[in-house]
């Protein structure tokens, strides 16, 4: 059971005055205080947990954000930053005594600079909008989290979001050049810019992935890349997970870094095939999708090399895409894996550990044993190139203790990831979800030092309270109203 710090009764009692104070800082209509509209902000993509905030405020400028944060500091009110609310780890879930600062109105692209190959945007611009803005000149923004149609660049910065192409092109942190950060005391810091490297302590690098704990990002400068000339994919089936894993290792050892390398296990293959009819082989124990991009001559050469490696590892079938349509068909099943699994069960819970790849067979066997022990089915999809595992645990929240069992199952998987030399989260963040596991990966001194870094920005711990670091004395249980399959948040947003 995950809980948030007990709300401060004194703050709750002053709600009216706080709302009035906030209203003076922003344009009319930009403070949300009625129960119905607050409900829209009560959770994110970790939908099992819900808590409406004290209020939501929607600033329209950096100066307004700074004014709100100075006010919150003076009034000692907690603050929860929010982009699109697509966090899978509960990073944007409010607290009852906190104001949510929503960046929805920070939706403008400020500067497209081809001479310096970068885009400057307000933090509420969606990930995909960045790529769209530069598509006509053949550029794009590389990190592509699956929720890219909805998630904001500010949220990507907070979570250091990845995506299927990050093996070759890096995570958010490797693609952000500059930030405007408003710290909890209302100070506006300009970090980085259109130049490279910071020249002093890398607060830019620290802020990326800080999960809304040290301030609010209002502006982001990202580097853009020229879109590769061509991309082709291979669909490779294996009679065992071991052979699929060995193939991934051999591809990398041969000096090839594919732009994407995804693995699915048998339950995931079957779920995806039943859902989208992508032509996946149903007799396979593991399926690999390997995507190669670059100049056509290079892609064709590497398709041949990877095909040879797969054959040497007893692949039962190997198909190379012969058209863009076929490439997309190969991906269709993988990209639909989450909703496809969602059809098998009223609910599913997506985990996100990273392991050294060589441990894959061992970890999958252990997950299979846990599945039998908990009596819950599991399907595994895997960013195979970088060892980032996404087990999808199937459960029905309306049946007995299944949600609790699913959570325990998930925790055991993540502990196993740490045990084999990996980490709790590869791309979804710690948030609320994995907070209480942090002591499993880090020792007391490791966590104390991270806490000191937080206090260097947020001395009285008002920013995104209860997230990432388990330092709670009192605890308040969160609402557990559950929404079933088909009515989940962002049903149109792909998840992979």
């Amino acid at each position, binding site marked *: 059971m995950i809980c948030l710090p007990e709300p401060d009764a004194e703050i709750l009692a002053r709600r009216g005055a706080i709302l009035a104070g906030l209203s003076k800082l922003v344009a009319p209509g930009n403070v949300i205080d009625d129960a119905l509209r607050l409900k829209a902000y009560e959770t994110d993509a970790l939908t099992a947990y819900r808590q409406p905030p004290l209020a939501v405020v929607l600033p329209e400028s950096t100066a307004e954000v700074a004014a709100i944060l100075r006010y919150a500091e003076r009034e000692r009110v907690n603050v929860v930053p929010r982009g699109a609310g697509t966090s899978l780890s509960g990073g944007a879930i409010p607290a009852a005594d906190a104001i949510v600062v929503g960046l929805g109105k920070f939706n403008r692209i400020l500067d497209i*600079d081809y*001479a*310096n*190959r970068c885009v400057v945007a307000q933090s509420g611009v969606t990930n995909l909008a960045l790529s769209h803005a530069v598509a006509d000149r053949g550029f794009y923004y590389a990190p592509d989290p699956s929720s890219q149609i909805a998630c904001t660049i500010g949220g990507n910065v907070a979570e*250091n979001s*990845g995506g299927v192409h990050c093996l070759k092109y890096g*995570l958010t*942190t490797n693609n952000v050049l500059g930030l405007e950060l408003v*710290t909890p005391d209302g*100070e506006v810091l300009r*970090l980085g*810019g*259109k*130049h*490279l*490297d910071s*020249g*002093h*302590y*890398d*607060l*830019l*690098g*620290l802020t990326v992935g*800080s999960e809304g704990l040290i301030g609010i990002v209002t502006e982001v400068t990202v580097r853009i890349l*020229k879109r590769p000339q061509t991309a082709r994919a291979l669909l490779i089936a294996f009679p065992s997970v071991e052979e699929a894993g060995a193939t991934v*290792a051999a591809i990398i*050892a041969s*000096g090839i*870094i594919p732009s994407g390398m995804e693995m699915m296990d048998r339950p995931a293959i079957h779920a995806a095939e039943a859902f989208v009819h992508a032509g996946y082989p149903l007799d396979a124990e593991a399926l690999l999708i390997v995507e190669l991009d*670059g*100049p*056509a*001559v*290079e892609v064709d*050469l*590497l398709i041949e090399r990877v095909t040879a490696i797969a054959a040497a590892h007893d692949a039962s079938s190997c198909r190379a895409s012969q058209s863009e349509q076929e490439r997309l068909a190969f991906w269709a099943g993988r990209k639909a894996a989450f909703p496809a699994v969602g059809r098998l069960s009223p609910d599913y819970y997506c985990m996100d550990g*990273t392991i050294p*790849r060589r441990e894959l067979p061992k970890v999958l066997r252990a997950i299979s044993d846990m599945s039998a022990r908990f009596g819950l089915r599991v399907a595994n999809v895997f*960013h195979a190139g*970088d*060892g980032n595992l996404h087990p999808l645990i199937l459960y029905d929240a309306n049946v007995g203790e299944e949600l609790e069992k699913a959570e325990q199952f998930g925790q055991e998987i993540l502990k196993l990831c740490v045990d084999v*030399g*990996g*980490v709790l*989260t590869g791309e979804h963040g*710690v948030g609320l979800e994995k907070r209480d596991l*942090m002591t499993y990966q880090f*020792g007391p*001194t*490791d966590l*104390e*030092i*991270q806490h*000191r*870094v*937080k*206090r*260097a920005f947020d001395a009285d711990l008002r920013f995104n309270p209860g997230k*990432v670091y388990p330092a709670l004395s009192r605890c308040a249980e969160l609402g557990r109203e559950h929404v079933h399959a088909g009515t989940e948040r962002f049903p149109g947003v792909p998840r992979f």
Partner: protein
Amino acid sequence: MSTIAAQPPLAPHDTDELAELVRTHPRPLEPVGGGSKRAIGRPVAADLLDLSAFTGIVAYEPDELVLTARAATPLATLEQALAAHGQRFAFEPPDFGSLLGAERAQTIGGVLACNLAGSRRIAGGAARDHFLGFEAVSGRGERFKAGGKVVKNVTGYDLPKLMAGSWGTLAVLTEVTLRVAPVPETERTLLVQADTPARALEILTLAMNSSCDVSSAAYDPWQGAALRLEGFDASVTARLTALLELLGNAETETLAHDRSRALWIKHAGAHALADWAIVWRISVPPSHAPAVLASLEPERYVLDWAGGLIFAAYANLDPARVRGALREGHATLIKAPVAARATTCSFQPPPASLAAAFDRIKAAFDPNHRLNPRRLD
């Protein structure tokens, strides 16, 4: 400092001894791996902390793309181990030995602590982008770890980023984990004639904004613009053809693999400026380079990072001119006589709001200024 020679060497054998020293030694400490970068920044009034016991590869798994080594392992040792498996550090650590006349080889901990990347920075990222995790002793003498030993990890604050570029002022790194990358099958470099920085920038920008996947783009007024292509042989050939087409009738010369490699080693280490007394390393938005150069008026310079990095050389030190030339970016005095470094801020002075944040970060790790006091001031 000259007083150091008189001190008995402080050379802890293991992390516990190191932590004990940081906690109890009566004077501040200057952590030193290879000592190759001691001549950068303000001379430190502290006792030398010799980390040479912290050497050796802890784990290297080529097909996991991850290497863990003790922090004072010589870079050359790691590069040899990587080369044996056809791998390398993609950020191309530069060697400033010819510039600074360092007698000892640099270590991986030093490279990371100073966040130094070579010409491939624009395509391969900075040192910080490949720094996955570490173990260290803070300025309070606490042993701690951060990050991880896998290539994809967002668990907790990204403290490796904070260590990279901290120049040993926050903690003493004892063990580091890096991401590694395959060595490309081949590389070739196209030299293109360019008489002015403005013309050079035009060429660099044209190449960088093409689909040719240029991994380094530099300019030396004595040599022209240089564009590096790396990858599979067939791909490099195709991209070279495309690049030549793009450049029209510009005068060019193509360097094959070995000459190409030699050129970029010199470029990354700014060998061309070795004879000058004063050298600045200046990071700016690439498009600013011609204007910045016009107000810098260096006696000799080279450009790297598609115009975004300027090495500017002078006979005499004039910080006001350099600082005044930048609208955005930062300038580091990378070479200057010790007396000049004692009285000049070698690093870019931050604005007041940032300086306060830096002070709080410093206090979080090293509140009593035990490590490299005033090195960055």
